[in-house]
């Protein structure tokens, strides 16, 4: 069993072939441990979203290995991959992807119902997840259209966090939210990671990436730099007094 929640080894993704081939990712390696929030930054077209999709099993690498919770995604059948995505990975997208015909609670409960845990238990889990992100019981039974943007995004995050998942993938999760709501989204992700999840956050906003433990910089599909992990308190202390 890998010590990492997510491991990318030398991952390459090429779209098309021959002269028309586009190298979206070129030999990217990255690991996420439990408790870690990693931000990926880079200009448009640098491969950020491809990286997230490959990490989440939504897209397959042309070469290289993607391991989630110790399982090599390429070794899985389509059915097994779908089950692993549902059970182990939460996704938060810019456009929320909530189902308009379902209430907030039903949206959050859906992946758990698909897991086969039963309607009552999944509703209970959904309400707990909504409560964790600050969406109260009153809003839980409203439809996405009836919620403000910030609330909708909280529901989307609750859906990504519901159940036992430990890998959260977020692609520009604050979208068009104002600065205050955007920050509360990052606080939620941060709290979830502090509680033991691993988070991969794609953003172009430095202020949001500031919530991560580590920032990885992507350009033309390759990792060009990395802030390295945060120094722990002891290391900071040693640095402060060691002069």
């Amino acid at each position: 069993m890998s010590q990492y929640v997510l491991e990318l080894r030398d991952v390459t993704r090429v779209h098309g072939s021959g002269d028309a081939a586009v190298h979206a990712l070129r030999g990217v390696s990255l690991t996420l441990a439990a408790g870690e929030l990693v931000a990926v930054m880079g200009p448009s077209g640098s491969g950020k979203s491809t990286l997230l999709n490959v990490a989440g099993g939504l897209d397959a690498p042309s070469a290289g290995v993607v391991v989630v919770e110790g399982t090599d995604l390429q070794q899985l059948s389509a059915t097994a991959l779908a089950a692993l995505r549902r059970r182990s990975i939460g996704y938060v997208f810019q456009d929320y992807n909530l189902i308009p015909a379902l209430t907030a609670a039903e949206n959050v409960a859906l992946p758990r119902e698909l897991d086969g845990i039963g309607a009552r238990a999944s509703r209970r889990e959904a309400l707990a997840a909504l409560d964790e992100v600050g969406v109260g019981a009153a809003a839980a039974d409203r439809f996405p259209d009836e919620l403000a943007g910030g609330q909708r995004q909280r529901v989307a995050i609750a859906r990504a966090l519901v159940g036992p998942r430990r890998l959260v993938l977020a692609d520009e999760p604050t979208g068009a939210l104002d600065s205050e709501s955007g920050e509360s989204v990052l606080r939620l992700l941060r709290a979830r990671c502090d509680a033991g999840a691993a988070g991969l956050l794609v953003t172009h906003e430095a202020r949001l990436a500031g919530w991560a433990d580590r920032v990885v910089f992507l350009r033309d599909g390759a990792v060009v730099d990395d802030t390295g992990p945060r120094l722990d308190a002891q290391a900071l202390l040693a640095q402060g007094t060691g002069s």
Partner: protein
Amino acid sequence: MHTKYAYCVSMPIRHGLLALLQRGPMYGYQLRANFEAATGATWPLNIGQVYTTLARLERDGLVEPAPGEDGDGKVTYRLTAAGRSELQAWFATPLERRSRPRDELAIKLATAITTPGVDVRAVIQAQRTATMRTLRELTRLKAQADPAGDAAWLLVNESMIFQAEAEARWLDHCEARLTSVPPGGAPPLTQPATANDPTEVAR
């Protein structure tokens, strides 16, 4: 808190001290403690800076020793009328954007694109990584703060967060601008009229 910041903002200590004295007379150590309480030790002051600043303020007629000493023989200072109006004027006047540490960065990048053999993208990336590390530490301090009890300090902290963000955005902008300029597309150096390098004549 002894966090190292990439930014070493030179705070107008003079007006900070005047503002503290508006609350009432204080002696040097009280001023220092209150200054650090107000700014969350973001700009640590040493006691020497406090006394030097007080001496200049006294010379300029903005503060004066308060009559009588406290039991320990410490000199307390208070605002003069001129000090009060100076303080009022400070609060009433918007700050001009003066020389900031970032200007050094602007100069560094401006010279980097015109200096042969310098990898400007590497310069930008090194700065971006350093800025993100700063932002990470500032954000961490912010996350630990108590929104009610640390309100004044949070204000200072967020000011630094937004400045770091602005720098990161500006670096992104510089990089995008470089990408749109073909390699070697930097403006030619202003050559002395007597330049005799044949390659320069071609320009």
